[in-house]
């Protein structure tokens, strides 16, 4: 299990490969499910040109780790990797990677979805978008995945 919060640009698929080459034992996992969230160039009808992602150092990592641990305990998965960017970014930049390795795909799908849903619900990050007119807008809330309550029920 590895959780990284970084200012550097995120190359999600390089991270997956690197993790497979350095941490996982080759030939043992049957599949990997990944989610990559990318920055969009619009939000609520406004054109967005840049974004700053604020976070609470220490608390953010702690809460992502807790969510990953819940996923490792709740499903039969082999490993979980999360890399999340902070700081300044631009449209199409990857913001977050969640990757889950497992012997069987069902667990990997469930666990990956759980991690991204609860990361979004609990990890202290705040998006501040800059519009084409130079207006700064703090994003007020994330879109909900109807699967959030569902995952929680499965784990209960």
């Amino acid at each position, binding site marked *: 299990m590895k959780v990284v919060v970084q200012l550097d640009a995120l190359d999600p698929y390089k991270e997956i490969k690197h993790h497979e080459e350095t941490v996982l034992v080759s030939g043992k996992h049957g599949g990997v499910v990944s989610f990559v969230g990318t920055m969009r160039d619009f939000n609520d009808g406004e054109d967005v040109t840049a974004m700053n992602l*604020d976070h609470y150092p220490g608390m953010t990592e702690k809460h992502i780790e807790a969510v990953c641990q819940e996923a490792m305990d709740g499903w039969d998965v082999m490993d979980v990797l999360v890399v*999340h960017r902070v700081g300044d970014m631009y449209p199409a930049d990857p913001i977050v990677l969640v990757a889950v390795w497992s012997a069987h795909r069902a667990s990997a799908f469930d666990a990956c979805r759980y991690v991204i849903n609860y990361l979004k619900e609990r990890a202290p990050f*705040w998006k501040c978008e800059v519009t084409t007119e130079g207006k700064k807008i703090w994003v007020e809330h994330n879109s909900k995945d109807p699967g959030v309550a569902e995952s929680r029920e499965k784990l209960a």
Partner: protein
Amino acid sequence: MDIDVKFFASLREHMGRTSDKVTLEGEATVADVWGQLSSEPMPSNILVAVNKEYTDLSQVLKNGDEVAFFPPVTGG
């Protein structure tokens, strides 16, 4: 007791500062900390953490605790 206070995101801009220090006498809760920082009631959407764990205004504090106030989170 001495309490370290942190603000994030839009609340940081609203409060005009990133952090603060508050000194309280006797038993005190997060609500007492907020009362020292602002004459307004805490907005209902604001979240509270003590020592990097989510909690609420009723939590009793001890010397040296770190109390953070911030708006709903929007990561991922």
